[in-house]
């Protein structure tokens, strides 16, 4: 039943864009219709997923598919259901947002294409999650990746979009090739490409399998250093596309990792350790790179790297837990990681939509040109601030809850007697550092964009976002608040999902889950305490401050401050980015003031992506240079071509007759 709901949702969302194509004579109606169909499909899907998630268990269907090794096997278990929630919910929010953000009436064919792909990518993601056969999985995977590529490609007249689309396409394809190898190895060892059969085959957990999975899925998930495609792609895409790309598309990589590790009864501990280390590196460096950015969307994109890192840390702990047979560790790590999947989807989508609203209103995403938007767009500012608090992992919002669960996992490891496990507790300080840096970064973002006063004259007068854009943001924000305040409600569902993945004995994991639930209730209590205290203080303050006079900001004796003198985002983060000088290769352009009465002086700096711009691009460039030189050897003369034939003959004869 629930699988049928999901399939119906999948079909509806995939086809939703057709409405905007069919009705393109009446663009406004068309877009609304497309959005309505998508929302309806998503609702069905969410309903199906939620049922499975809260009841546990699994449903599946099998159909024949004639391609070699393929079968249309779909399976909905709690793990899949967990991922289905954001997969369906986010695009629904995004498509409503798109009505105002990317109106078909103005964008025409571009918007039609976008909506077709928006629905398609949603359906493909859902199919990835429910696919239970490697061929179906790969097909859905690539449809998803390619629609993602075409979505980045939407505004392909722009230079940076072209580059981003190319980098994204190649990165995702290389990842897919690794997955080909992965499933080929698994499938040929198990004699079937059905996940169920592979799981039953009891395959040996070889290093090759894990490395291929980590590589292939890691690229999609954006784990450092495989994240290089991500900042450009997320920045170049329209904001509601960035929202689903960052919010859910990345997560399919993590889902894949979970699915594949779930195929093995006892993955070795080093798998978990490797994932943990990769996660920690991604989290710390991701947030560090984010701090150094001055483009709002690029910054948010790097935060995706960070959050994927946090999720990977949780999942790594869970893997270690499975390896050493510690169900509590497995449950806690998994719950933290998996809940963070949902949470990150919610607040990152909220932030990207907010960033889109800013871009929409101001025509720029350059942090250091913005400022003081909280006056012009108070609702956007408030919602964005809420998202910022959530993503920084601060209580009482949802980000805190999932990070806290990851902490619980690592603390569980801390009390373990096994040395290997105990050492994994060192993830916690890394997470603490990440939390501090993330808060710093979002202080920078909110402070620079929404607070203070405008730093430059914008072409347009900033205005509040229209209701169609605010409503989805408000919905996402509400979800963040609810999860933050009542985490105990979600834990049974997370427990079901972890049981579906980890093959735990119910009794042992039940205890861990019950403990976590009672602790989560205490978190609710603390949050209530905080809200009560804040409410009391606020009402007291409100009474005291009524009719307070206003004045200029105290300038410390300086009498003619201008908005341009405000601290910029770059200067705010400078002290912290200095700490990561070893990982950054900033490019600065300095035009220093000259002479006694300098006329013009300028300074601009930019921190390029180390992996892409400092490592990959030069390597590829030199490879291209090398290829060029090899090609020069190839002459145009026909004699040379004939000689090649002769040489090939002689060489083959020599090889086959002298060597044989």
């Amino acid at each position, binding site marked *: 039943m629930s699988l049928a709901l999901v399939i119906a949702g999948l079909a509806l969302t995939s086809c939703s864009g057709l409405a905007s194509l069919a009705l393109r004579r009446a663009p406004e109606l068309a877009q609304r219709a497309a959005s309505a169909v998508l929302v309806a499909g998503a609702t069905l899907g969410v309903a199906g997923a939620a049922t499975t998630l809260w009841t546990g268990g699994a449903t599946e269907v099998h159909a024949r598919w004639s391609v*070699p090794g393929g079968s249309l096997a779909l399976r909905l278990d709690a793990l899949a259901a967990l991922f289905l929630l954001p997969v369906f919910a986010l695009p629904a929010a995004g498509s409503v947002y798109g009505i105002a953000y990317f109106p078909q009436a103005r964008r025409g064919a571009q918007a039609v294409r976008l909506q077709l792909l928006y629905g398609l990518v949603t359906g493909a993601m859902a199919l990835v999650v429910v696919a239970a056969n490697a061929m179906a999985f790969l097909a859905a995977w690539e*449809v998803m990746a390619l629609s993602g590529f075409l979505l980045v490609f939407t505004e392909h*007249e722009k230079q940076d979009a072209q580059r981003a689309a190319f980098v994204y396409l190649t990165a995702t394809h290389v990842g897919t090739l690794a997955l080909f190898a992965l499933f080929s190895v698994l499938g040929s060892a198990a004699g079937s490409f059905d996940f169920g059969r592979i799981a039953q085959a009891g395959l040996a957990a070889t290093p090759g399998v894990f490395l291929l999975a980590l590589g292939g899925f890691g690229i999609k998930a954006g784990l450092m250093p495989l994240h290089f495609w991500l900042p450009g792609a997320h920045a170049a895409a329209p904001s509601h596309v960035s929202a689903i790309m960052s919010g859910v598309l990345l997560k399919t990589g993590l889902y894949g990792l979970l699915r594949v590790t779930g195929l093995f009864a006892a993955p070795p501990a080093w798998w978990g350790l490797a994932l943990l280390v990769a996660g920690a590196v991604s989290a710390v460096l991701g947030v560090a790179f984010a701090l150094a950015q001055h483009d709002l969307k690029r910054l948010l994109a790097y935060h995706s790297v960070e959050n994927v890192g946090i999720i990977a840390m949780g999942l790594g702990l869970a893997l270690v837990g499975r390896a050493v047979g510690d169900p509590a560790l497995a449950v806690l790590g998994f719950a933290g990681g998996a809940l963070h999947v949902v949470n990150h989807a919610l607040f990152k989508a909220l932030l990207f939509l907010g960033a889109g609203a800013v871009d929409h209103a101001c025509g720029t995403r350059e942090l250091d040109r913005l400022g003081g938007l909280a006056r012009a767009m108070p609702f956007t500012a408030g919602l964005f601030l809420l998202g910022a608090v959530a993503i920084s992992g601060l209580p009482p919002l949802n980000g805190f809850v999932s990070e806290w669960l990851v902490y619980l996992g690592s603390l569980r490891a801390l009390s373990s007697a096994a040395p290997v496990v105990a050492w994994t507790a060192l993830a916690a300080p890394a997470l603490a550092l990440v939390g501090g840096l993330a808060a710093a970064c979002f202080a920078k973002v909110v402070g620079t964009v929404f607070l203070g006063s405008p730093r430059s004259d914008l072409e347009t007068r900033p205005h509040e976002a229209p209701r169609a854009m605010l409503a989805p943001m408000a919905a996402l924000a509400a979800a963040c608040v609810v999860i933050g305040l009542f985490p105990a409600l979600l834990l049974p569902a997370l427990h079901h999902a972890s049981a579906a993945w980890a093959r735990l004995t119910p009794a042992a994991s039940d205890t861990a889950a019950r403990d976590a639930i009672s602790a989560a209730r205490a978190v609710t209590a603390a949050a209530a305490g905080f809200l009560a205290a804040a409410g009391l203080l606020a009402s007291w303050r409100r009474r005291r401050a009524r009719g307070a006079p206003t004045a200029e900001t105290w300038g410390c004796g300086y009498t003619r401050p201008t908005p341009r003198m405000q601290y910029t985002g770059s200067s705010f983060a400078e002290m912290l980015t200095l700490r990561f000088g070893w990982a950054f290769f900033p490019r600065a352009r300095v035009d220093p003031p000259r002479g006694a009465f300098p006329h013009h002086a300028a300074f601009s700096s930019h921190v390029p992506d180390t992996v892409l711009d400092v490592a990959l691009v030069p390597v590829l460039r030199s490879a291209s240079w090398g290829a060029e030189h090899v090609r020069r050897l190839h002459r145009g003369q026909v004699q040379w071509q004939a000689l090649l034939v002769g040489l090939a003959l002689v060489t083959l*004869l020599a090889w086959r007759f002298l060597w044989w």
Partner: protein
Amino acid sequence: MLFVILAPLALAAVAFAAPSQVRRPLALLVGGLLHLAGVAFLWVTRPAPALGGWLEFDPLARVVLPMTSVLFAVCAVYAQGYLKRRPDRDNRIFVGGLLVLLSAMTVVALSQHLGLLWVAIELTTLSTAPLIYFDKTARSLEAAWKYLLVCSLGIALALLGTFFFALAGAGPGGPRSLLLADLTRAGAALSSPWIRAGFVFLLVGYGTKMGLAPLHSWKPDAYGEAPGILGALLAGGVTSVGFISLARVVRVCHAAGESAFARDALVGLGLLSMALAAVFMIGQRDFKRMLAYSSVEHMGILTLGLGLGGAAAAGAMFHTVNNGLTKGVLFLAAGNLHRSYGSKRVDDVRGAARRLPISGPLFLAGFLAITGSPPFSPFFSEFAILNGALGGGRYVVGALFLVFLSIIFVGMGATVLKIVQGDPAGAPEVKAHGDSWLTAAPPLVLMALVLLLGLFLPQGLKSVFDAAAARVGG
């Protein structure tokens, strides 16, 4: 069976004789449709071998002939639109040559006799060489000369190899025949050294025709200068029948107990082709030459699959079909781009998705398909070949295969994206050469077929691939 060979020949004669520039292309259409109908009839009736066993609609032919026929029919439709745009050129030789080519390809596909096979393959070279010179430019002339000379050279070596095979079976108790059935039946009675030597000569000879590296050098020149329609038929049809010929040679080797000898050479040459194609595709500035190297790559993949044997060989058979159809899409779309921009340099062509709303995206889709993106059908065949490598424990081969695929993807992607994306304003333009139905629909149909084969592969076709792989044996 003779009908599918003779009907195009007869129409070629008609085309040579016909006086009207405008009506002559219709001969192509008629020929293509008659051939298609004939092949469909063959497919359904499964006729017995004809001409004393020299011609047979065997599984290998069942793989390649329908694909070639469909490709030709589609190209014939395309030719109606294409030739209408080139009224300045005398199309007598063009139309006649294409029909002779169709007939020759059919003979190759059906031939069970190595001598007849050779004659027909040489005929494919001779019938297409003048067509490369269709544009009557110095560059196309050069390409034609190189094509003619290098291919003839290779084919001459193949003839020598064929004679070696004959000699191997000429001893007492030998079959003294060049019929495949006789040779395979003789098996171990064949003289092993001569089989080996013959295999090497035939590999070089038919490898030249297929365009395996390093025997591929004529390919970028010929494909680069030939009209898109001819590129499609060469890359989709002629190379495929060349591959089938090689598969028949390999079948004899297997029967003679020389599998190991043949396999290493096939795998080595296949990987070398992929590697060289990768090197030549990085930073390629000419998109038609890029397609030529893609063809080299895919011939390498086919050879690799053939060399790996078993499931990989079945994958290679499937891939023959996929590659042929997809190459058709790419060359026809590339031809449209070339016409519209009057240039095939990457520096001149941009914003194709905007200017040619069908051909531009088709080119992109064709690129994605040919590089093995699911759910397009080439993915499934490439995956089968990969499975063959990894499942057989050839991890190094599998790894190299993937590495080359990824390099090629990056190289090809850079070129294709530069062409497709961006704003076409300011790029050179030839007026009135936008997408029309006659030129845009044919590649679209092929693309739909490629997608369809990926989503739904009829059981009948699948068993043909398996039967073909079993036929090659080993």
